[in-house]
């Protein structure tokens, strides 16, 4: 259990709802759910989830901290916004799903190898470094996320596409070396660091 997680558990004890309210993006909305189940019925991927938004909200109220934060479900949200449009109580459900996912990520409680989280992490790392997403590096990192052999297999499977893109001049192999970046990555890093500091303070991650 991470240090932050330990700290949150101590602080909120059984009151997970309060924890969500204070630390999860848009978490203060959870208490306004009236359990009508329209979100669960509206979600195009609802069947694929272990827990629908309705259930996640109920679990939060019931204090099922571990189950909620280690759930795979909020990671499955595709941001189609059907639930937000339909929620009679106007809960920003999509945002709450992302908020929960983000909180679980920060506490490092996400199931191992959760693919959405991996993609997001690679995307963010690429972006935060240079201010630009390096498509070539990002793709290759994705190919190799499950190991070297699997990476080679993935790359071979996709080589036709890669050559096609190169021919059409949509992919520059030279990007592999450095690649293009924004004008002043140093300032970007400072901005991100500041934003993170503010968020950490707000969400109780400041040590």
């Amino acid at each position: 259990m991470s240090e932050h997680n330990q700290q949150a558990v101590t602080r909120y004890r059984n009151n997970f709802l309060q924890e969500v309210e204070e630390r999860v993006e848009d978490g203060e909305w959870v208490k306004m759910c009236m359990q009508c189940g329209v979100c669960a019925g509206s979600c195009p991927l609802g069947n694929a989830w272990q827990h629908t938004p309705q259930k996640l909200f109920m679990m939060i109220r019931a204090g099922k901290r571990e189950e909620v934060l280690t759930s795979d479900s909020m990671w499955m949200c595709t941001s189609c916004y059907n639930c937000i449009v339909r929620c009679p109580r106007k809960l920003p459900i999509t945002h709450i799903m992302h908020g929960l996912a983000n909180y679980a990520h920060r506490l490092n409680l996400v199931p191992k190898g959760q693919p959405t989280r991996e993609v997001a992490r690679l995307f963010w790392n690429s972006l935060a470094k240079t201010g630009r997403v390096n498509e070539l590096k990002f793709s290759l990192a994705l190919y190799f996320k499950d190991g070297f052999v699997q990476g080679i297999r993935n790359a071979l499977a996709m080589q036709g596409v890669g050559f096609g893109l190169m021919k059409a001049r949509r992919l520059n192999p030279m990007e592999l070396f450095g690649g293009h970046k924004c004008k002043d990555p140093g300032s970007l890093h400072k901005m991100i660091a500041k934003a993170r500091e503010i968020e950490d303070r707000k969400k109780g991650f400041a040590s």
Partner: protein
Amino acid sequence: MSEMKTAAYICSGCGLGDKLDVAQLSRIAQKEGKMALVREHAFLCSEEGVQMIRDDIDREAVTHICIAACSRRAKTEAFHFPTVAMSRANLREGVIWVVAEGDQHDEVRQEMADDYLRMGCAEVKKMKLPQGNPAHADNRRILVVGGGISGLTAALESAEAGYEAVIVEREAQLGGWAARLWKRVPFRQPYAEPQDTGLSELAARVSSHPRIRVHLNSTIAETSGAPGRFSVQVAGPSGTITEQVGAIIQATGFDTYDLGKLPELGGGKLPNVTDQAGLEALARTANGTPIKRADGKSVQNVVFVQCAGQRDASGMHLPYCSGHCCATSVKQAMYFKDANPQVDTVVMYTDLRLPGMGEDFYRSAQRKGVTFTKGKVASVEAEGDGCAVSFRDLILDEDAVIAADLVVLATGQVPSAGVDLDAWNPIVTAAEGGSEEARQKKAEMQKISVLNLNYRQGPDIPQLKHGFSDSHFICFPYETRRTGIYAAGPVRRPMDMLQATEDATGAALKAIQAAENASLGRAAHPRSGDLSYPVARLEGCTQCKRCTVECPFGAIDEDEKRFPVFNESRCRRCGTCMGACPVRVISFENYSVDTVGMQIKAVDMPDEFSEKPRILILACENDAYPALDMAGLQRHLYSAFVRAIPVRCLGSVNTIWITDALNSGYDGVMMMGCKHGDDYQCHFVKGSELANYRMSKIDDTLKQLGLEPERVTTCEVAITDNARVARLINEYVEKITEIGMSPMKGFG
């Protein structure tokens, strides 16, 4: 009225003149209808046409008129002649608008119109001009039984409208349940916070009102009389006082469901399980500070169990929803949250129902952090010095337990309507039969009576389901089945304070109407303003008691010799007694066995080989007849073989009409009335049910006559069934055509 002089007026407006042979109608009115005066007019409801009729009444001393034009429900303002007896032959909605267009239908259309005119002439000759109830009295004071929110509101509204009011309250102070609340559910914008009940101000206003008299610590020892002249014995601390009043409002409210009946939820067993009323008491003690339990411990977590002993399908507890408890629990959870936001408050519900603006209140509670859990509580057990609530979480579909310092059960409202007459009547019969046990039981039952009516039909207002007073739920909710007595508040159906206030205001207005109508010798709702009243030819009476038993409104008492004693002021003029009477001695001046019987006989009956069946429709004037009119208005065509007669209620249909009709050659009889049963729509509550019951016995009569049982049919018709009623008629005519013509033709 001395000499009868008859007149018929035939209108040829609205297309009547184009579709019908008016000259022939005139001849029929003269020759067959035997009308002394027959006039045609191209536009009878015009000022000129109406003036023509008025002139005849004034100059020719016409006393009985038959207007052959549109339905009796149309142009009532133009055709308003209060000094003469009047019948209306419905040629527009009843004939030209419902019979198919075209020459090939000319013959049947004309026959239909001819018959309606014959019927109108026959009817009016048997009618008398109603003179008004001779036994009327004009006391217009309003007695209110019960001094809770409903009673106080009813008394105040009556007094503010200029009527004297008397309140009888069993307790030592006014206010009832409402006065025992700490706060009430909000009834004003923004519907977010519990509000002050305002009860002390209301009680003070009532107590000091110059037109309101209050009897505290008092009950009703006896109620006798009728609207306009009720005499009420009020038993109070200083003896019995007699109050004379014109109408009564029963606002006796409810009791809470007995906690002791819910041992599985800890009710009556665990000290820290209470009901909503118990929590209000704790809140009043706390007076705005954090609520403490009875043992003085402060409450850190509280669980509200909704639907405790309510909405129960097992038959052990209340089967219904009391309507207010969700909002009440939300309010009570706020008591805790407002005093200390750290207190855990869980409302455990299966369906949260907050009618009115309750959704706003619900949201407000969610904002304050009240937790709502959809779950069904299985049991409440003692744990430590608190409770453990075991429940099935209905969203997560699993069993769970939560701990609570205090558990509040949302139990329901049990009406205090008095004696259940369905249980009472058999006991009275047994007691009259000499059973000592029954006599004791009767005395025991009488103790809970509210009104102690000295009516033959029992001491209280009749109940429908679950002990709530019986009333026409949709059309006139405050009416009870005792004329001049109105029910308001939770005695009528479960409700909250706001609804009770509205209810009480409505009931006050109805009570005022009843007293006013009674003072003029007129009927109350739904035949409001009717001056006719039942008259019995007692020399023909066989003392069978059917009229006294079947009267839905308890209007008829019995004298020592068991002859019926009519209380005209209690009568609603439905005619159920007339329909019940096997020797046909009961009639109204303008509605009798004869007025309808003569119409039935006036129809010209084609012979067996004409292939023109005749079908009699007896249609309830409240719903079925308007539905027929509207079928005409919307041009839903139906067969020209039917002849429709409006009746006051299907309950007023005397079986002699059916036998007469069949004997005189009708091929079928359709009776159209309102829905009956528990969800009845009958405007006279029992009329359509009784008619249905009576007709279920008519099969024997049909067999004796050698007729098929299908020749008499009963159907339920709502006022909105315009297209359906036309379809019903056509289907029935088809069926009769299949069966064949009646063999009885030519004998009548």
